[in-house]
């Protein structure tokens, strides 16, 4: 008999105080509380983190990979947003 699958949760880990939480993977759990405990057991067995966030995967709204060309292309023709676009005299180029 196939058991019904539990909801999928995405797990984010802060490895050290002051750093961002980073996505590390996902797991199935019954609710947020259980997801946190599972995440601790699965993703921090070697003290990899000081803080965990879990988010129900279905609550994440993501951009579509297939559309990414047109979604991100507004910045393609704006090289002047990068510092190295500007050629300055050598003596002050470390600005």
């Amino acid at each position: 008999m196939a058991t019904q699958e539990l909801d999928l949760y995405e797990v984010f880990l802060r490895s050290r105080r002051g750093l961002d939480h980073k996505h590390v993977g996902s797991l199935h759990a019954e609710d947020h509380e259980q997801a946190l405990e599972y995440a601790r057991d699965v993703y921090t067995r070697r003290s990899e983190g000081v803080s965990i966030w879990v988010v129900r995967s279905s609550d994440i709204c993501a951009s579509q990979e297939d559309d990414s060309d047109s979604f991100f292309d507004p910045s393609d023709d704006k090289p002047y947003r990068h510092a190295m676009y500007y050629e300055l005299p050598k003596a002050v180029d470390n600005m």
Partner: protein
Amino acid sequence: MTPEENFMRKIEAGEKIEPKDWMPDDYRKNLIRQISQHGHSEIIGMQPEGNWITRAPSLRRKGILLSKVQDEGGHGLYLYSAVETLGISRNELIEALQTGTAKYASIFNYPAQTWGDMGAIGWLVDGAAIVNQVSLQRTSYGPYARAMIRICKEESFHQRQGYEIMVTLSRGSAAQKAMAQDSLNRFYWPALMMFGPHDSESAHSARSMKWKIKRETNDDLRQKFVDQTVKQIEVLGLEHPDKDLKWNEERGHYDFGEIDWDEFYNVINGNGHANRQRIEHHVRAHEEGEWVREAMHAYRDKKRSAKQQAA
């Protein structure tokens, strides 16, 4: 260990404080004051440059200036989001700005009169802001530190595009060079004032240093800026606005002339050229956007009730 001792232990160990950690009320208040002032500066700072977008001398310059002003708007958002983690709402922040209980950097109360000012503002005003912000990347409050890291990375082009304008003007006709010199003269001293009063006069400095909200003092940061700017002025072939500037071999720094602190406090207290105009413009733009916010709320409510009916 009491919560207070635990807090100080983290500060002294160089650990970051995160939103849900216990923190003294005054630490929270101090951060709200500083981060909101920083965010307001980004937002109000859009005005003097926004004023020149339609008058940029070429399409290239227009694109660059537009991108810079967009960045300031984005940076205001990062900072407002960081300060909101401390339990203050966006509405409260905006209200404090518009009623004058919160301040923003005084520099934006100086008018941008010429195209040369676009050069001087990017080079000197953003340059001074970057010196301050690089230091704040190590501030003790996590969300503020992370916002600073992102902002510094994005802002690196702001100063360079300003300096590039100055290079072009100072290599141009006599009139263009004079325009560059005039902008330098008008923005140099206000840029030095951006670092705030002398450490001995600064109301918040000592405690901010103890809590590592600030990592370097106003005077130390100002010195850094003065030192780095000397060569930049020389390369432009312009005259340095400070006649008392002199290399001090012993200190390994430039000595420089005294800042006009009467002017500084006068502008802070509302008597700069553009104080009223800046806030009036903000209020007007905010009010003109009211119908958009209303429409968004109406749409949200409509979607919610449709969902409830379906369920």
